[in-house]
């Protein structure tokens, strides 16, 4: 395929396919290392605050590349061909695309898929033909003898197709800093990803045709067919690998450490397979990442998830940096053939084509969209059409024999890239401010929003059914149900396969809050989020004044005393938990079987309810919101008064987890971890106080089965309390949901 197996070998000395001599190899290595070092030093740019707010990173990087290239040239050395197309397409590009695909926000992407496809396919086609065609016309109009006259139509069209593709790397680099609203981001970004298929097909086609010389209608039709095969084939290959990866992850519960590896390996294989069959590698990668994500995330451990996330971010950052630097180096190094007419006309045509394309397409698209695109949106979309390294690499791959104009093409491509990245990249931020384009909402997803999103989905599906209209929502609902019924069962291990989305979301939130609680040292300092003093008490529906207050009227002072004692013990316990004992390694509760633990917990709650005669210690005075929230996230039933069937007061400290027969029989690490987690999440009234174990005068109708439990449990508890909590081991900087 054009990217991996260039069909025609170039015979020039600087041809990278000729094995490099040792010194050249060495130089290449040195340059690579230098660049890697540079790329790690590069974040220093952020230390110059003014600089990074004016100039986007990509510009800075290119400048650095220019400097490096210049230095090397000054030193008299020959600059090794660093932007080796092989290196680029095999090593540098995939991490960025995988990162994009894995974290692609599926919902907005799917909702706007029609628009994105229109821009990607029709828009790119339009751009290619417009630029190529008009360039040819301009060349023909040359009165002067220059080589421009020799430029035929097909090479022009080829050039047009290369230079007209919006580049995902550049778009990512620039758009990440301007924080525009989700819709625009996904439109431009989605377009840059999906137009790969079009670019690939066009490039290949024109390349072939220009050797043949003439194009017939049949060829054109075949071209369209080719496009469909390339695009759909790429997506299919990606999806298959994605499903394979998801399926594999189902069985990795015993080999947690290598889980991230599967994700990376399968994705890369998807990319390579697609490229091998001359399909669109980028689309395969995107499809793979997007398909496998929901299932893989349900299966893998928390730590693997974090690993994947950070590795992807790291690799894509490094790749991006390297790409831009190499672009700079290649600019300095490349032999250029500057032709004023050609270059300026190219730049102008690119801009004009983009604008006309976007405006025209939006006009058509708006007829089918519910939320129309305004003029401001159109402007941003047009302005955000940046070209980048992919265009350059494709140009680099051109055969010099067949395209004597290659150097001129390259110069023009580089100029366009520089223009878009520098001029458009630098000015887009002030323009966004100026035009007051809606920015990305920073608010994190709240449980209310999640509830209502689901509610809306069902509501709209219902209304569509009532109207008898098989719309959008109907099919989405059908897909979801199919997913739930069949696919999830296959691809997700264990109980999680039946977990509804709302509950999954809620558990994630719980965990995040639990992590926050632990990290904030048990509520000593307030978390930065909502500082409110609202607690569950404020919300519980007003019950009739507690007639059946099982605890006999303790004078208020006594109550306060009790509370103080409990609170004091809680803090002491927290400190104890944090003392780190290296010799006692405990299973990380956040790891294996988190979800199983939660389900076990819910089962245990059910069993608890069967135990009669427990009442709550009156809810602790309003603690910091973290504690309240953590308390809340466990079963709030604990805090309600239970109607006593008898008037004999009993006090039982509620030990959430270990009462069920289940837990007693499972004496393993997980169990202990579960207890500890339970303990931490149920502050004052409960069991953490080693000293304050209030054992019940055994209730009647008692649970004989559980009686054997308490002593063994107590011991376990004592042991647990001296174990280091995960906060000691926790070396993550932030909760994994960021």
């Amino acid at each position, binding site marked *: 395929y054009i990217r991996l197996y260039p069909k025609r070998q170039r015979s020039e000395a600087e041809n990278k396919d000729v094995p490099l001599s040792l010194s050249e190899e060495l130089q290449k290595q040195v340059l690579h290392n230098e660049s890697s070092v540079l790329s790690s030093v590069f974040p220093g740019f952020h230390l110059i605050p003014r600089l990074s707010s004016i100039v986007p990173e990509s510009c800075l990087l290119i400048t650095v590349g220019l400097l490096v290239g210049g230095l090397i040239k000054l030193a008299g050395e020959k600059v090794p061909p660093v932007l080796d197309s092989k290196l680029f397409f095999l090593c540098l590009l995939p991490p960025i695309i995988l990162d994009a695909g894995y974290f692609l926000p599926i919902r907005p992407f799917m909702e706007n898929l029609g628009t994105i496809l229109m821009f990607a396919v029709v828009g790119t086609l339009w751009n290619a033909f417009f630029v190529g065609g008009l360039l040819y016309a301009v060349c023909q109009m040359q009165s002067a003898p220059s080589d421009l006259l020799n430029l035929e139509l097909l090479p022009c069209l080829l050039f047009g197709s290369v230079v007209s593709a919006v580049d995902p790397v550049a778009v990512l680099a620039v758009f990440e800093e301007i924080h525009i609203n989700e819709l625009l981001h996904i439109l431009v970004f989605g377009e840059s990803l999906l137009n790969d298929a079009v670019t690939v097909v066009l490039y290949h086609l024109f390349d072939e045709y220009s050797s043949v010389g003439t194009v017939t209608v049949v060829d054109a039709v075949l071209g369209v067919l080719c496009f469909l095969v390339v695009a759909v084939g790429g997506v299919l290959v990606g999806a298959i690998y994605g499903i394979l990866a998801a399926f594999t992850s189902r069985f990795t519960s015993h080999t947690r450490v290598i889980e991230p590896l599967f994700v990376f390996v399968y994705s890369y294989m998807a990319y390579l397979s697609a490229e091998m069959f001359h399909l669109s590698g980028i689309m395969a990668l995107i499809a793979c990442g997007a398909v496998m994500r929901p299932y893989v995330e349900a299966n893998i451990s928390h730590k693997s998830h974090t690993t994947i996330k950070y590795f992807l971010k790291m690799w894509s950052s490094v790749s991006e940096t390297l790409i831009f630097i190499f672009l700079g180096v290649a600019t300095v190094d490349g032999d250029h053939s500057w032709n004023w007419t050609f270059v300026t006309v190219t730049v102008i045509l690119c801009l004009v084509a983009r604008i006309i394309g976007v405006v025209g397409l939006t006009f058509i698209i*708006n*007829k*089918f969209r*519910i*939320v*129309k695109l305004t003029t401001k949106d159109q402007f941003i979309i047009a302005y955000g059409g940046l070209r980048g390294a992919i265009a350059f690499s494709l140009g680099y791959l051109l055969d010099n024999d067949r395209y004597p104009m290659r150097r001129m093409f390259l110069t023009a491509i580089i100029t366009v890239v520089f223009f878009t990245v520098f001029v458009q990249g630098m000015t887009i931020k002030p323009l966004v401010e100026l035009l007051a384009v809606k920015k990305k*909402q920073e*608010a994190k997803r*709240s*449980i*209310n*929003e999640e*509830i*209502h*999103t689901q*509610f*809306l989905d*069902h*509501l*709209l599906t*219902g*209304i*569509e*059914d*009532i*109207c008898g*209209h*098989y*719309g959008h*929502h*109907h099919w989405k609902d059908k897909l979801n*149900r199919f997913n739930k019924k069949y696919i999830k069962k296959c691809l997700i291990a264990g109980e999680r396969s*039946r977990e*509804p989305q*709302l*509950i999954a979301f*809620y558990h994630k*939130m719980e965990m995040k809050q639990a992590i926050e609680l632990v990290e904030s040292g048990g509520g000593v300092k307030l978390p930065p989020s909502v*500082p*409110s*003093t*609202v*607690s*569950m*008490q*404020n*919300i519980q*529906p007003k019950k009739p004044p507690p007639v059946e207050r099982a605890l006999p009227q303790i004078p208020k002072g006594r109550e306060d005393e009790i509370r103080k004692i409990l609170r004091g013990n809680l803090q002491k316990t927290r400190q104890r938990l944090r003392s780190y004992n290296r010799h006692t390694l405990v299973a990380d509760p956040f790891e294996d079987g988190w979800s199983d633990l939660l*389900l076990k917990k*819910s089962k245990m*709650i*059910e069993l608890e309810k069967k135990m009669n005669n427990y009442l709550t210690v009156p809810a602790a*005075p309003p603690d910091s*919101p973290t504690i*309240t*929230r953590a308390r*809340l*996230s466990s079963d*709030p*039933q604990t805090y309600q008064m239970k109607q006593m069937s008898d008037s004999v007061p009993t006090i039982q400290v509620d030990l959430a987890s270990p009462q069920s027969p289940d837990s007693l029989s499972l004496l393993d690490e997980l169990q202990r971890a579960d207890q500890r987690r339970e303990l931490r999440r149920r502050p004052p009234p409960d069991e953490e106080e080693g000293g304050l174990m209030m054992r019940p005068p055994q209730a009647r109708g008692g649970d004989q089965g559980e009686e054997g439990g308490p002593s063994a449990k107590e011991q376990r508890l004592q042991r647990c309390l001296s174990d280091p909590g995960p906060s000691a081991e926790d070396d993550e900087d932030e909760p994994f949901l960021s």
Partner: protein
Amino acid sequence: MGASQTRTEDVFQELSDKTGFSLEQIRILHKRFRQLSGEEDTISKENLEKIQALDKNPIRNQIIEAFFDKRNQNDGEVGSSREIGFQQFVKVMCHFKPPTLKMTTEDKEAMRREKLRFLFNMHDTDNDGTITLDEYRKVVEELLSKSGAIGLEAAKAIADAAMLEVASINVPHMEPHEFYEGITFEHFEQILKGLEMESRMNIRFLDVDTSTMHCGKSQ
């Protein structure tokens, strides 16, 4: 025959002017109405319950109830009708119109408020102007009703967490003895601000600007 037809057309025209739907859309809705009602003039709950596709919907009852809820007619009345006519049917459908390009920000705000009001009415079943904890719990339970035992367990916790969140955002400083009665409409608006209802709560074919409405018909 001819006279009644022109009369129907007039009625349609009137409805079209009042609600903003095009004549074409009104006609299609009318056809569907007749289909559902079995050629009667009114629809009752049983007619809607017969729709098979709705069976799988977890909030089926709330949706059906919403059609008969007098509050959604914006007449100032409350309570639940037993039957509704075509006008009321269209009125309910109005809530699902998408915004047009020419709308101003105020119009969009008003539309958003209307849609949020519809949702609010769906939750606030006893019509006291607030969504209490019990009502909210019921909402979440219904949402998870198709998920078996796991759902019911978590529903309570989720509803409580959600309520806490609403309270925290809207009334950040409450004393321990104070009591948060329930979610008022203003608070409801506040917490769902981020969702941009006017762009989300739409049925595509009720888009007033397009004339293409030949997506599949069921039943």
